């Protein structure tokens, strides 16, 4: 077995077509006023340059849910570092989930967003998540823990993002 084949197994690829401009999608990924409206609803903090920090502070809703379940919540849910930022086409960054000690211990993974125009006012958003050495995070991102209330992973987040950009409202309304 070659190295490429092994890497491929731990990579997850998600693609969604959205009736929106690449710029609108880029903003929805990188601006807190957008990211708080879909998915987990965290307000992202990005410095969009190579080496720039990325973090998502824990939302009040998450803190409350954690307190109710008696689980301590960290101040930051997700952190990482920008590797490449080419607005509004390509964003490469590292990504580490801190909400859970097991995923935190797995360390940083690599996330790539690619946005392309696809004609007729539709854009194609492709998300590639390289999850080598991070099986717990991979399960979370694949939505395998949705029944426990951990969210439906990237499919859920991207489907919510599509709904928000196309209708102005996310599932949560």
């Amino acid at each position: 077995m070659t190295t490429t084949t092994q890497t491929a197994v731990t990579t997850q690829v998600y693609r969604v077509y959205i009736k929106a401009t690449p710029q609108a999608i880029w903003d929805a990924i990188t601006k807190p006023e957008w990211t708080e409206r879909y998915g987990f609803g965290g307000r992202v903090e990005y410095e969009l340059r190579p080496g720039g920090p990325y973090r998502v502070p824990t939302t009040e809703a998450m803190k409350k849910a954690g307190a109710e379940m008696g689980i301590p919540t960290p101040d930051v849910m997700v952190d990482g570092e920008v590797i490449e930022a080419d607005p509004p086409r390509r964003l490469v960054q590292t990504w580490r989930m801190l909400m859970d000690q097991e995923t935190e211990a797995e360390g940083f993974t690599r996330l790539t967003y690619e946005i392309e125009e696809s004609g007729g006012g539709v854009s194609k958003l492709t998300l590639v998540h390289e999850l080598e050495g991070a099986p717990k995070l991979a399960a979370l991102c694949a939505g395998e823990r949705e029944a426990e209330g951990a969210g439906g992973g990237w499919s859920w987040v991207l489907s919510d993002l599509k709904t928000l950009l196309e209708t102005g409202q996310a599932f949560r309304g």
Partner: protein
Amino acid sequence: MVTDDDRVIKALADPTRRFLLDRLFVRDGRTLTNLESELEMTRFGVMKHLRVLEDAGLVVTRRSGREKLHFLNPVPIRLIHDRWIDKYRERRVSALAELKTELEEEMA
């Protein structure tokens, strides 16, 4: 007009294509040669099915060195689920809940 939903539902309405998706679910990022090895079908036949899955957005291909890898993209299924399944499931659940309330009121 052919919608995205039409393409996805049509792509799923075939046992070979569902088999291919199930194989990718077990292990993602496979080559054509690998996928072909598990089917009693010509390479051309498998390529045709993969093409339909790709057009529906259920499979995304990416190059890795000299290899073309096939990845399962679950987002279209999620969209169908949210649009078609969740909706009716909630209605059925609420219909059952109403029935329960009505029956209990009758008994009281």
